[in-house]
C-alpha cells in the first residue's frame, strides 16, 4: 500500500485493537442480500421509515463499539454516533412534512415506534466481541448505508426525500473514508463509491 500523508498517530491506536476476531456486529452486513432490500418499501414514506430504523441502528452500533474501542479512536468516531441520530432526525422531519401533506393517512408511515427497538429487522445489531471486530462491523455498517442510499435515490419520488438522502449519503461516504484513515487504509479507495469493500 502506498503510504499517504494523513495516516496520523490515531492509526497506532488501532494497532492495539488489531486482532483476528471478525465477529459480526451487524449480522446482515455483507451477506447475500440484494442492495434493493436494504430499505424496503414502495412509497417514499416506507423507504424513509426504513432509513430511520437503519440510522437508529447505526447509532446503537456506534455506541456499542465506542465502549470497547481505544480512547484515541473513540475521539475520532464519537461524533459519528451523533451524526447517525441527526440523520434519523432529518429523515423524520421530511417524513413529518409528508404526513402534513397527506393529513388523514399518518398511519401509513412505516417508522419505528417508541416500543420498537431501533434497528430490529433492519440491521440486526449485535454487541461487538472485540475492538477489531467492532471496527470491521462499523465499516460494514457504513458500506451498507451507502448502498442503501444509492438504491433509495433511484426509487424516491419526492424532492425533499431525495435531497435529505443525498446529503446523508455524502456523510456516510465520509464516515467510511475516515474509518479507512483510522484503520490505515486509503481514505479514497475508489472513484465510484458504493458499499463494496
Amino acid at each position, binding site marked *: 500500500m502506498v503510504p499517504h*500523508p494523513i495516516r496520523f498517530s490515531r492509526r497506532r491506536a488501532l494497532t492495539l485493537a488489531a486482532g483476528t476476531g471478525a465477529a459480526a456486529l451487524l449480522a446482515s452486513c455483507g451477506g447475500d442480500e440484494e442492495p434493493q432490500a436494504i430499505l424496503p418499501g414502495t412509497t417514499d414514506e416506507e423507504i424513509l421509515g426504513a432509513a430511520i430504523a437503519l440510522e437508529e441502528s447505526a447509532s446503537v452500533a456506534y455506541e456499542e463499539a465506542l465502549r470497547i474501542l481505544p480512547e484515541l479512536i473513540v475521539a475520532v468516531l464519537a461524533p459519528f454516533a*451523533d451524526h447517525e441520530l441527526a440523520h434519523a432526525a432529518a429523515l423524520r422531519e421530511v417524513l413529518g412534512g409528508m404526513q402534513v401533506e397527506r393529513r388523514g393517512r399518518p398511519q401509513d408511515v412505516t417508522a419505528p415506534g417508541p416500543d420498537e427497538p431501533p434497528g430490529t429487522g433492519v440491521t440486526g445489531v449485535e454487541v461487538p466481541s472485540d475492538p477489531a471486530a467492532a471496527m470491521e462491523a462499523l465499516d460494514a455498517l457504513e458500506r451498507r448505508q*451507502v448502498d442503501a442510499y444509492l438504491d433509495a435515490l433511484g426509487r424516491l419520488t419526492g424532492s425533499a426525500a*431525495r435531497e435529505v438522502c443525498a446529503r446523508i*449519503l455524502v456523510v456516510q461516504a*465520509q464516515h467510511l473514508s475516515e474509518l479507512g*484513515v483510522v484503520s490505515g487504509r486509503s*481514505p479514497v479507495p475508489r*472513484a465510484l*463509491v458504493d458499499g463494496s469493500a
Partner: protein
Amino acid sequence: MSEGAISRRGLLAGAVATGSTLALPGVADADAGGRRSTARRRLRLASEAELRLLVAWDSAAKSSLLAPPVARLARTIRDHEMEHHEELEERAATLGGPTGAVRPPAEAVPGLAAARTQERMLAVLSSLEAAAVELYLAFLARGGDAQTARLFGQIVASQGQHQVVLRHLQGAEPVPDALAPAPGPAHGAD
C-alpha cells in the same frame, strides 16, 4: 334505447379509446424526450465540473507546491476525476451522444493560476470540490432516471471523500457536519 344509439355511443367510445391509445405513445415519447434532454444537460454540467477538477488536481499534482505525499494523493484523486468524467460521458452516450464538455485550460479554473503555496492550492481544490458536491446534490434532489441518479450518487460520495482528505491536509475537522450542505436554488434550475 335503440341498438343504433348504443352502437353509435359504442363507436364513439371506441374512437375515443382508440384516439387515446394512439395519443399516449406520443405523450410518452415527449415525456421521455424531455427527461432525456434534462439528463443530458445535467450530465454535461457534471462533466464540465469534473474536467475543471481534473485540471485543478492535475495542476496541483504537477506543481512544486505540494509535499511529495500530498502530490501522490493529488494524483490518485485526479485519476478519480478522470474516471468520473468518463463514466458521465458513457452515461451520456447511452442517452444520445457525448456531452460536448471541453477540458478547460488551467488559466480558466478560478484561483488556480494564483495559487502560490500548498495551503492556497488546497483552498482552491476545496472550493472546487464543494461546488461539485453542491451541483450533484442539486441534481439528485431534482430527480431523474435511476441509473443516472445512482451514478451521480456514487460520484458525489467520492467527492465527499475527497473533501475528507482535503480537510485532513488543512488541519480541519474531517467530517464536521451530520449532513452535507443543502444545495442552493441556482443549481436546481434545469
